[in-house]
């Protein structure tokens, strides 16, 4: 019996419990005693008691039984010897599992052939393609595994139904005019909401921890000093098992490239975004605003890879040719350069800056504007001397949030900034960023446990720490600003 079917039946039991519970509660309301909870709360309580424990049990049972099945298969596999045909025991077990899955697709009652060679055409006829190194001895093991799984599933389903019905009965028996079903339901709601918000936090913690462990492994082979303060990025290639040449993992060129490109992007995005925000919040008539604001926000909806393609296919060559034309032959702007990447990233960030600043500027109370205008200040004087200073902390926060986006941006720089880890001050040359190198180190056929791959985690963690600090500072500033007008 599949888990999905079990789940559906449990929910059906819950629905029945809900209906019965509501009716019972309504029938008990004879008007003599004021009922504590309205009838549908009793119904919901019965539903929740019927469904929640049963679903939890089902989940635990499913996970447990797949563990059990795993061990069962491993135990049934023949001892590994030197001339085993399959490379590893894990692979052996996984072949059995896919075979077991395939066998379920065969029509019931089909006689099973003893060799895989005969079995394969039958499976292919059912649309099941299996690895050709599946061995004959796996067939009985797979059949056995399937029957164990069936038994486990059936038993689990029975227990689940029993629990569900028991829960429903327990709740239905509790129904009384003064029973506090409403409080119970509300408490469960609270727990549900709490669980939802915990998931995000736990995921973040999980991500950080997983990166942390890989990073620690990386630092076992490369010293943190040479990583954080090294000025040369030259990871070399690692042949499997070779301990000799290590390569150099200097963070500085990547960090410099990241910050340089982000700075160019901010130089483009902040003035333009801020001015467009000022225009939209202070000058634009309602009809203009209703067109321009969505149009700007549309820019934010373009996938960054599209910006990257634009940069590498259109803007980069254009700037290179332009510079060649200006100097008469030798282009001083390279096809991939800090300037190109920063420019395109800046354009991408304009809507971020403008929409954040627009909210902040609009939040400055109208009384401030009136006060200034009432003293005979012009609109631009009011903006310059009252509104922007009042909104400044918020705007700084918005810029920091934007900066952390610029630092974490990947696709544009992968395409437009180049992969050469230079350390240069010339904005027209190629430079690379942390995100580009993470992509580079993790793609391709590198051995996973080599520092060449593990460095990606160290880079990722560094990036995470960098943007985390910026976000915390930004949020702190924005929050402080909010208090000012309350």
């Amino acid at each position, binding site marked *: 019996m599949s888990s999905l079917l079990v789940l559906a039946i449990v929910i059906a039991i819950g629905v029945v419990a809900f209906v019965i519970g509501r009716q019972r509660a309504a029938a008990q309301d004879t008007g003599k005693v004021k009922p504590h909870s309205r009838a549908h709360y009793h119904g919901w309580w019965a539903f929740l008691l019927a469904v929640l424990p049963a679903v939890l049990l089902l989940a635990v049972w499913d996970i447990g039984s797949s563990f059990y099945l795993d061990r069962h298969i491993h135990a049934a596999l023949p001892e590994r010897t030197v001339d085993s045909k399959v490379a590893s025991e894990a692979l052996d077990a996984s072949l059995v599992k896919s075979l077991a899955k395939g066998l379920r697709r065969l029509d019931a009652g089909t006689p099973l052939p003893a060799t895989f060679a005969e079995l394969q055409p039958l499976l292919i006829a059912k649309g099941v393609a299996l690895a050709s190194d599946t061995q004959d001895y796996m067939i009985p093991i797979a059949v056995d595994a399937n029957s164990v799984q069936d038994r486990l599933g059936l038993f689990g389903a029975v227990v689940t139904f029993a629990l569900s019905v028991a829960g429903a009965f327990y709740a239905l028996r509790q129904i009384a005019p003064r029973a506090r079903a409403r409080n119970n339901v509300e408490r469960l709601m609270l727990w549900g909401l709490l669980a939802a918000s915990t998931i995000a936090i736990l995921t973040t913690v999980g991500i950080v921890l997983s990166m942390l462990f890989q990073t620690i492994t990386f630092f076992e082979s490369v010293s943190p000093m040479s990583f954080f303060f090294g000025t040369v990025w030259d990871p070399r290639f690692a042949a499997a098992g070779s301990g000799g040449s290590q390569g150099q993992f200097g963070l500085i060129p990547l960090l410099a490239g990241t910050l340089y490109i982000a700075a160019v992007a901010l130089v483009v995005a902040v003035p333009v975004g801020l001015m467009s925000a000022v225009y939209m919040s202070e000058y634009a008539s309602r009809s203009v605003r209703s067109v321009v604001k969505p149009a700007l926000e549309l820019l934010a909806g373009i996938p960054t890879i599209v910006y990257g393609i634009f940069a590498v296919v259109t803007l980069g060559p254009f700037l290179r040719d332009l510079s060649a034309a200006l100097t008469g032959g030798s282009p001083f702007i390279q096809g991939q350069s800090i300037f190109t990447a920063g420019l395109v990233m800046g354009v991408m960030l304009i809507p971020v800056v403008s929409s954040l600043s627009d909210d902040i500027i609009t939040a400055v109370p109208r009384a*401030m504007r*009136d006060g200034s205008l*009432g003293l005979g*200040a012009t609109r631009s004087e009011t903006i310059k001397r009252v509104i922007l200073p009042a909104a400044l902390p918020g705007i700084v926060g918005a810029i920091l949030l934007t900066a952390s986006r610029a630092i974490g941006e990947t696709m544009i720089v992968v395409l437009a900034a180049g992969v050469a880890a230079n350390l240069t001050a010339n904005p027209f040359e190629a430079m690379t960023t942390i995100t580009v190198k993470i992509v580079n180190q993790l793609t391709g056929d590198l051995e996973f446990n080599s520092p060449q791959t593990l460095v990606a985690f160290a880079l990722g963690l560094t990036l995470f720490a960098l943007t985390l600090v910026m976000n915390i500072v930004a949020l702190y500033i924005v929050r402080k600003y909010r208090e*000012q007008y309350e």
Partner: protein
Amino acid sequence: MNIMTEQTLENAVGDKMNAKSNEVIKMRGDKVGVFYGEKQALFDVNLDVRQNQVTALIGPSGCGKSTFLRCLNRMNDTIDSARVTGKITLDEDDIYDKNIDVVELRARVGMVFQKPNPFPKSIYENVAYGPRIHGLAKRKSDMDQIVESSLKKAAIWNEVKDRLQEPGTGLSGGQQQRLCIARAIAVSPEVILMDEPCSALDPIATARVEELIDELRQNYTIVIVTHSMQQAARVSQRTAMFHLGYLVEEGATDKMFTNPDDKRTQDYITGRFG
């Protein structure tokens, strides 16, 4: 522009000569109407504002008194849908004329708002804001002078003289409102408009501001919108009663509160509606 400055000068001279005269008309509204989009909020208001007097505008909520007040320094311009008809003059000049610069007008006709709205700057900078914009002080010492005298005129100098660099938003509500009055005075306006300046204040702060309004009358012309009958009676010399967008009646405050011509004024003042 030249004509205006000359007239301003003449008026300044005239002020001293007519200090006790009640008959100089500082501002005059002639058939003033205001529309917010399609809706008309004010109908044919004819009202004179006399120099060195306090004119109180009273009436139930939504009667158009604040709307009229905001016409006097064209603050309605800041509302997109608002449209003003009729004629309003300041010293005989039509303030809605094309040649009038609204910025200059607002420097001559200052405004104090219902809710104290100091800028999130220091007390000193709040007062120096207007003079700085209009370039009234050449040197730092001139500015200090303007700030000090404005704060003194607004009767708040003694409370803030030791903390001029602290933020204006840190003052109490009553102090903030007097700071806003000082801020308005600092640009040496001729007329000060006050839109329910005491509605957000406690009784003690209200008494201070009312005292102040009475003192300011010596040097400025004041128009005040108020919901409090007692306040109108205490501080004003002239009272105008608005109802549903119309000016019901206008006259000397004493007469309005003892023997009004219109039944509606009578009813409103005695609390029968409003």
